[in-house]
């Protein structure tokens, strides 16, 4: 039982962290790294579940794309 509760807690905190990343990314990040997303807002909420689930990958790509942008400038 304890293991199960522990696993579920981990899952819960993982999703909370994902929620925080989703807010950050949709408000700040997406316009910076994805030009096609500029001025389209309707589709953004659709991305929330995905960000919550794979937020470490989202952060990794965000960081990577920012660095690429810097290198171009």
């Amino acid at each position: 039982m304890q293991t199960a509760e522990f696993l579920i807690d981990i899952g819960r905190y993982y999703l909370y962290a994902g929620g925080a990343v989703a807010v950050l990314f949709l408000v700040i990040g997406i316009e910076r790294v994805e030009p096609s997303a500029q001025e389209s807002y309707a589709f953004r909420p659709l991305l929330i579940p995905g960000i919550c689930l794979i937020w470490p990958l989202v952060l990794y790509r965000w960081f990577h794309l920012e660095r690429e942008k810097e290198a171009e400038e």
Partner: protein
Amino acid sequence: MSVQYMPVLWNRNKIFYDAVLLIAVGLYLFVFIRVAPAFEDVSKPIDGAILRMRAFGSCAFLMLTIILCIGPLARLDRRFLPLLYNRRHFGVLTAGIAAVHANYVLGWYFNFSPTDKYAALLSSNTSYGQVLGFPFESLGIAALLILFVLAATSHDFWLSFLGAPIWKALHMSIYAAYAFVVLHVAFGALQGPADPIFTGVVAASVVLVCGLHFMTGRMEAARERGEETAKASLQENGWVVAGDLDDIDEDCAKVVTLNEDERVAIFKYDGKLSAITNACAHQNGPLGEGKVLWGCITCPWHGYQYNLADGRAPAPFTEKISTYRLKLIGSTVLLDPNALPPGTHVDPVEIGGAA
């Protein structure tokens, strides 16, 4: 200007596809819930919630099977291609149906559990060391998590944001999900009282999915070997590899340098390929930097025009330039480096016809 993202892109075909999909799923669930009780063992009647749980579980399993068959089928026969393009909504719906199945399980078996439902599910059976009575639910959970991730990352945005290699690798995990589901069923439902119909369906699904992948794999290996030999024999005859079809943008050219003062421009236009010398007959202007219009190339320097198929300027002009022969093998463009006399007609290579 780039295309803006929309929540969902629908067109007539996709609406039709989605409608058929929804009707088929609805019919399956309806028939299952109506008809299955007729086959059941009268001494062990099953409850409505369990019946619905099974209806949704088997529906998700069949949908997953179909999804995995569409890929190889489309490679075997192009007529299946439309199914491939619309697979996305199919996948999202599958995840949804599987979620309903899992939700019935939670609601039915663990609703009255004094502890958290999810914790109860995870801890009700932890005998991971045994085959009979293996906690098959955890395999279902693993599959469901994968399906959720795939459904949640199916929007075009994700393909562009993650980049094709990462996105493809991520979506390859659909095979892991399928394996988990097969094991989930093999350790779960199939361990119960023998049910020949369902056992048959699961076995058929595994044979179908594995068989189709095996077949397309062999077919493609054979095709690749054929292409390799064709390429090698052309190269023996002096032809050169000019590059990949995808390197050439539509209505533009790729310029291949044969030697110091011989360059060839290979154009892609109207689903065809043609090669002409890169040097304009007027003052050696770079034809490969021009754009194609109506099968004609216009020199970027002073506007002379040439037909790509024969290197002749349209009447009343009389300029002629050299043409070259091309072959398309797979997606590789090969070029005969021997220039043909100026104005020689060469049938353009049809891009679709190569396959």
